[in-house]
């Protein structure tokens, strides 16, 4: 009786919405980046599912419906880009160079650190596209020979980290321009970072959205070039 209710989309969607609204409420009350609503919601839902003994695939019947809306949301990123096109076009050089440098820095630092700490070949390769939006990261990792589910998990964790710490970190190291902040968080933390930047500043959000697409493209090309160069 209960199992088919838990497996219905109603359960997953309602659970996610209720937890998310509560997390947002806490976020507004405490006003601290550490209680980022996405991160708090993810942790709370995982704990609740584990405690109640609910399988992830049952939750996913509802969760996947919310996840589906990510697709049209990415398409919708064209709207702020169009609305702020003049400001963005004026800064095309810092934007393109900044994203390219970030893409290269991500591959080199993630793989280099994992290698230095004795990570296996699969782990190193799975980390390579960690700052890229999930669908592109998966197609990259399948091509270069990493573990796709591991990459998916790392990408989400990276996104949460960037969203939680990004704007504050940028301010502390002296990045004050909204364009530079949006680029930094969008390049490092893809869609989750972009969602956070839209809360801070419209222009920063628009630039972060642009960084999702461009970083995905640059990382795809950089990695196929590096893999060929290193003879993999």
């Amino acid at each position, binding site marked *: 009786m209960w199992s088919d209710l838990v497996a219905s989309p109603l359960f997953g969607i309602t659970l996610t919405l209720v937890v998310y609204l509560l997390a947002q409420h806490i976020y507004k009350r405490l006003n601290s980046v550490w209680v980022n609503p996405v991160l708090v919601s993810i942790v709370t839902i995982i704990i609740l599912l584990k405690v109640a003994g609910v399988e992830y695939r049952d939750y996913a019947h509802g969760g996947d419906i919310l996840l589906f809306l990510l697709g049209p949301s990415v398409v919708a*990123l064209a709207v702020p880009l169009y609305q702020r096109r003049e400001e963005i076009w004026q800064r095309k050089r810092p934007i393109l160079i900044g994203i390219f440098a970030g893409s290269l820095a991500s591959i080199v630092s993630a793989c280099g650190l994992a290698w230095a700490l004795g990570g296996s070949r699969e782990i190193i390769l799975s980390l390579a596209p960690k700052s890229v939006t999930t669908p592109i990261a998966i197609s990259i990792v399948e091509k270069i020979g990493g573990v796709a589910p591991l990459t998916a998990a790392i990408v989400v964790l990276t996104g949460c980290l960037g969203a939680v710490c990004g704007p504050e970190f940028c301010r502390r190291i002296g990045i004050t321009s909204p364009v530079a902040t949006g680029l930094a968080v969008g390049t490092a933390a893809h869609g989750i970072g972009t969602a956070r930047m839209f809360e801070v500043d419209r222009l920063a959000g628009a630039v972060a959205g642009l960084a999702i697409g461009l970083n995905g493209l640059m990382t795809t090309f950089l990695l196929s070039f590096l893999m060929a160069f290193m003879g993999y």
Partner: protein
Amino acid sequence: MVRGLTLLLLFQLCGEFISRLFDLPIPGNVLGMGLLLCGLMTGHVDVKWIEEAAELLLSNMALFFVPAGVGVMVYGDLIAAEWLPISVATILSTFIVMAVTGKLAQKLESPEATDVE
């Protein structure tokens, strides 16, 4: 609202179609974003048609990531097996990317475009 959502889905579908047709490494939603931007720039799509729907989705985008994050629970064992290189590389690299991109972009921006606080 319905018209806006329909257009967004239509552009995503076109993106998916092109991505599959040419076997591109770029996912359909990112191509859809590019196509919609082209449509807006060339004046074939009026921004008024999609503004409202886009705003609704973008202002709640963070919510749609929650189920993806919950999916991490399935790979707990995989992460636990090599947690040290994974966590150190993920955390440090994220900060390195933000510092490199942000600092470089800010330096390259013209001084008058920079918002000095």
